[in-house]
């Protein structure tokens, strides 16, 4: 495959970023697409920033550069905003409205950014923006990742098809969570989300 695609997943430690990465890697392997991943998680378990870059295609690394990301999945709005430099006018963004307040916001020394403004900014400049304002009540916060992945998978140009990702989930997830994970991923595929 000659097309090169860079996908970035951004969020906070504990949100399942590595887990999403595993699924996408498996999906790429199934599709016989060359894949490479770079994760940066200084102290992920301790609530720090986590980003994972996935490069699809020959000699396309998981490292990111400015205006180099084609698809961004934001599991947390502030961390989505922190990645704006990586986006370009042809990028697609899927992000959810699940805020995790950093300490400085709690302490009142800094202000959490305005999500509506962020959404409008992205909408006016990116090719496609999907903002999940309210997650379905039946989904726990730990599973928002799969729901957002579903939203990403239905975007027309996303290089890994929903069917393949379903197979990847089947391969990756073990035990009783398998069915649940598939169900949540499919919910993301089906439900209409307005922006």
């Amino acid at each position, binding site marked *: 495959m000659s097309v090169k695609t860079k996908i970035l997943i951004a969020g906070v430690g504990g949100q399942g970023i590595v887990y999403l990465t595993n699924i996408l*890697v498996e999906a790429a392997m199934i599709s016989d697409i060359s894949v490479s*991943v770079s994760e940066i998680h200084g102290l992920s378990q301790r609530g720090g920033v986590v980003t994972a870059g996935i490069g699809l295609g020959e000699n396309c690394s998981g490292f990111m550069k400015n*205006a180099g990301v084609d698809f961004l999945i934001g599991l947390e709005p502030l961390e989505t*905003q*922190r990645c704006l430099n990586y986006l370009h006018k042809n990028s697609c963004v899927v992000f959810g409205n699940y805020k995790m*307040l950093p*300490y400085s*916001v709690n302490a009142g020394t800094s202000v959490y*950014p305005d999500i509506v403004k962020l959404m409008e900014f992205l909408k006016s400049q990116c090719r496609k923006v999907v903002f999940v304002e309210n997650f379905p009540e039946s989904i726990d916060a730990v599973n928002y990742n799969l729901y957002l992945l579903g939203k990403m998978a239905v975007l027309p140009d996303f290089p890994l098809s929903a069917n393949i990702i379903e197979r990847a989930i089947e391969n990756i997830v073990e035990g009783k969570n398998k069915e649940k994970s598939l169900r949540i991923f499919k919910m993301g595929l089906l439900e209409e989300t307005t922006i």
Partner: protein
Amino acid sequence: MLKRTKNIITSREEPYKTCVMGNEGIVRAAVESGVNGVFSYPGTPSTEISEIFNHIYNFQHNSENEKLYPQLSFNKIYFEYSINEKIAMEKAIAFSIGNKSAMCVMKNVGMNVASDPLMSVTYQTIGGPLVIIVCDDPGCHSSSNEQDSRFWGPMASVPVFNPSTPQESYTMVKQAFGLSDLIKLPVIVRTTTRVSHTRGLVNYGRINNRVNDAIFERLPEHINIPARTATAHSKLINKLNSNASKELFKQNIRLLNKGKSNRNCIITSGVSTTYTIEITENYDLQHLVDIIEIGMIYPFPEKEIIELLENNYDKILVLEELEPFVENHIRNICQRNNLNIEIFGKGYSSLVTTGEFSLEIIREVIEKFTESNFKKQDNIPLDNFENYLNQLPPRPPALCAGCPHRATFYLLKLAIPREQNELIMCGDIGCFGLGALPPLKMIDTINHMGMSISMAQGLYESFHSSEKDRKVVALLGDGTFFHSGLSSLVNAVYTRANILVIIFDNRTIGMTGHQDHPGASHLPKYKEIEIPPVLKGLGIEVVETINPFSIRDSFYKVEKAMAHKGVSVIVSKAPCIFLPEYVTQSKHKTIIKVDHSKCNTCANHLDEELACSRCYAPKNNLSRAKSKLMAENNISGEAQLCPANICNHGFFNSILEGSYKEAVEIVRDKMLFARTCGDVCHRPCELFSDKNNFIPIKLLKKTVSAIDNNFYDFSAPIQRVKNAERKNKKVAVIGAGPAGLSAAYDLVQQGYEITVFDKEDKPGGMITFAIPSFRMDKNGFEFEAMQLKEMGVEFVFNTTIGKDISFDKIKNNFDSIIVATGLQKSKQLDLIEKNIKPENKSDAITFLKSFNQNKSLFKNNSNVLIIGGGNSAIDAARAAKKLSQQNHVTVSCIESEEKMPAFKDEIIHAKNEGIDFINGSFVNKISEMQNGKIAVELNDFENKSKKMYSLECDYVITAIGQVGDNALNMDNKNVYDENGRINNFENKLEIDKVFVAGDVCAGNNMSLIGAIASGKKAAIQVRKFLENYKYDYEGDFALKRLNDTQIPHYRTNNFDIDKKELEKYDLFQSCQKCNHCIDNFGCPAMVKVNGKVQIDMSRCTLCGLCIDVCPNNAISWATVEEETIN
């Protein structure tokens, strides 16, 4: 995990393509190479390597797996987490000398610890192959420096491989095993974070299940003595440069993009190769530059490189992170081989020796090097995205919710507060190092691993040598204690250092993902070593083990350890939340909830605009939190309310914090008379509270306002007047007593124009004239009262309403009026009026007024009879005695001693001064005798006809109360009650815009604080009238209680103000200015939304400590059901 473990030890006859992390590729390569033993100390970015070997060990040593998967368990790989890298290296060397294949794994700084054995073993020999994996961390993602481990190659004379991808890591580790086996030298494979933690495609192959038998050969090389080392060095160099090494050079030089006419070349090593390939491919530079990647960088493949460079290139760009290792070799060989090639490296474009490279940096450098313009090929970035990146809140890592380290730090904050002394706290490497960040900020130093105890003893010695003997605290984790803390502790004991060591024992090596260590082994292969017996064995006298979640129990142990002179150790033991042994404090279906009516709420007033001098500083709330947990008496703020609505809770806590100035300001937020109340208030806030359990607010008020610097600084209220919005309304206050002045004080701060009228020539009313000077500081009062002038209040003295100015005129000139004229007329007894001449009698107020002017109404050596049992009677009696010790003073009152309205303390004073009391008596007969004396016959008040006492006196003072004197000159008798007080306590006066305060107001308690409170209440009534102010008087509850309830007078105050004594008390109330949990605790499950703390149950681990931490008692357990109902 099982699947992954099985996969990694399954041999593949055909190449098996998989996508794995660089670290996992390294493991696979070692397994394929037939490694027999792996020795490691965990450290990021190398951690996963040892973790996977740990899984393999556990898999292969599981008897069920042996049956299920005999092939996978056939060649058992020994693995251990050694206590530190030096031991790991030594044991790996020895394992290899025993003819086994060994690997030793560590992070960059681990090599420093492990270098000692490495530097000498190269002069000797090994047995089986020995491969050392060192993972560097450019950019310091998780390390204390970014040292370049490639230099261990020339330093120790060992070969070094430097892979750029997971696949290369895999290949080079396999080559390293082969090479080490051939040349009998350890071989280093060095990666960086971006290689170790990148996932890419790797092809797995066959596993070599070679079984080496353990053999020990008695070789002379095993004995390292100086006689042999000189020759050994040259042998070492020969081994290093042997043909075996040279054969690998070619395999590890990659030539890419080879264009026919390329005159430019990029030489790369490590992850820079990946960046370079991606950039050159993205921008179609294949026809412009060649790329040479060098994978084996020591010994340097000089001959092979020269061959590639010679006659081919004009310009070379060397791309490598950190030091110019490859670059210097290239420059060296070009110079020695007379190659005329221009070389670009460190210092060119944005190539520096610090930090990581990135696609951006490499893009920029290559753009310049190839004289290209990449811009037109780039994607278009979002317009003005920079605006959205500015000032984004950072998200530093924090200790987890429920982390025992946070509990320990919080305990330390309470037990050894840092504000009060110059305590130095020396931290160490590990999760708990996050305690250096806000909000904990309990660490002053963090150095390399294991330094804490040495730092503490060294600093102690440094201060000790300047004769400043202070205890220094060392903090370290349990893993670090065994890694290298123990030997330092031995030194501290040995040298008699005065240090406190706190071991954060969370039962694991937390930072790197929960590995075992000697103090907490979870596997049968390890024997657990308990820390306290080790410490006691060293002769440390104070060794305390605490549970950091039990703050009350642990507090005194920490205090004791801190007080001990010498080495003392606290082992703070509670498991990391990720361990199975972590148990929540909760029962099934329990959650934690915050009662928002108590969180960040002011219990004192609804009107948040009202002045509050309580400080927001984090440490202030710390003492509230401490007293909540540690005080013996927890008193609710509601029990000690002040009718003037002074925030007694804030006042007391300011004193606990040592902020006496703030305490005075808190009093002055609400009223003028800090010092006067400290002198003469009858302290309903204390007397109403529970019998033996109250805080001596009055005594504290006296103490803090006696500090002149604080007392005479009145700038804050004056500033409030300046800041107030001008209302342009005029209010007249008639009467400059405490009620009138208090009303004026509140209103002037709200921007009203105030004029105070009084018939006397100075302010104060009864305070000035009736309270004797020995009971209070008259100058202090005058200062306080006259501050109103500074605040802009106008005083009109010597003016009587109805005489000097008509009430109607005042009504016409002012928007509102407060009448606070007091009760000026003393009640009289007919019997005395008829029978005693004016020169032999007076009322108490007249007498006290002359006393305060240093005049006496009778001669010295008189017998004086006081009639009455209230405070004026006692004041008069004590004043009469003060005039002359020869005066004989008797008090007759109708009440028994217990029921006298006067303050108990005053009665005791009077008795001690020699004043006689005839309780339960009344004047039945009184007459003047021929000799000028007065004969008095006192009968029993209960049994009126029963004679009780006869006496002769010279002078009679009546003190039986005051009545009004028609202050407003009004004819309507309904306005007044039987004592001439105005009947409008609930403000039902017929005259519009006139309000009444103080003693003249019927029903109001006749006391200083009663007057102040009623003046404040009148001010609120004026505000409601003139500006539609919406709140009621917020001290009304306490004022009503004061008016409606008989105050118990039996209690005396024998409280010493001593810090230790005060710390036994806690006066708690919810406080608007509390941010304690956020400022001092910082649990990530606690989020503050709209000013209130919430618990994020998705992150909460139910440790329950926040319930103890909240000084407002706002947090509690709840069941899920309860919360749903709410």
